[in-house]
């Protein structure tokens, strides 16, 4: 009988199961229930607007960098045109009409000389060739 009492006593005692998982602490669904709230639970409206502004700005900056890539050659071209215009203007300022006249005369004489050069061939008569030679000697003497 004593043995039976012992066994019943053992059975009545609560045995703690070592691997039993403890029930989780209940999560406050109501943040105003009294516990301290973490600071980042709510996102401020100001923060949101800042992020949006950042996004817009980064988008603008990105697009601007792409745009600048396109614009660069255009800018270089414009600079070149500007330089050419300025050099042409300088030339126009420094060159007098007589200079222009001289250059035109020189060009015409060069063209005439080249035309004469092309004209000389064995198809010309000996007297013509002789005259051309004598004229050339005269020109050389005059130049010297």
């Amino acid at each position, binding site marked *: 009988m004593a043995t039976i009492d012992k066994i019943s006593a053992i059975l009545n005692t609560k045995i703690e199961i070592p691997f039993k998982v403890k029930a989780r602490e209940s999560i406050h669904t109501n943040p105003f229930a009294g516990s301290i709230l973490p600071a980042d639970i709510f996102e401020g409206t100001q923060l949101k607007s800042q992020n949006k502004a950042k996004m817009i700005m980064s988008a603008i900056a990105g697009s601007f960098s792409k745009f600048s890539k396109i614009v660069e050659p255009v800018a270089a071209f414009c600079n070149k045109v500007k330089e050419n215009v300025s050099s042409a203007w300088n030339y126009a300022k420094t060159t007098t009409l007589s200079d222009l006249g001289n250059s035109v005369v020189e060009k015409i004489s060069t063209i005439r000389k080249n035309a004469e*050069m092309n004209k*000389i*061939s*064995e198809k010309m008569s*000996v*007297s013509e060739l*002789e005259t051309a030679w004598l004229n050339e000697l005269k020109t050389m003497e005059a130049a010297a």
Partner: protein
Amino acid sequence: MNKKISQIIDALTMHQDNDSIRVLETLGTNSSDNDIREKTSRALVKKNVHDSLKVVIINEGKGINDLSPVVAMSTINEILALKDKTEVLHILEDTINMHSSETVRENAASVKSLLAL
């Protein structure tokens, strides 16, 4: 050398008219410019006719007898380059045998010996 004169000499070289020899002799071989004399002498040799070859072989101070060694050597080279040497040999023979100037005769003999090589 003046480009135009060079072209005129080339044109006269190709000319069939015998008067071209006269022009080359008068204006070319009497020029004070060595380059013109050289080109003219070569042009006269290239013609390879009796009258033109005579100018550069028998005349003192012209062609092979030019005082400029460049002109003389250039003329000799042109003579050596001729395909038909019959006429030039004939003139050289006559020059060696009959010319009054000893220098001209010696020069002609030298050219003839070069041709024989």
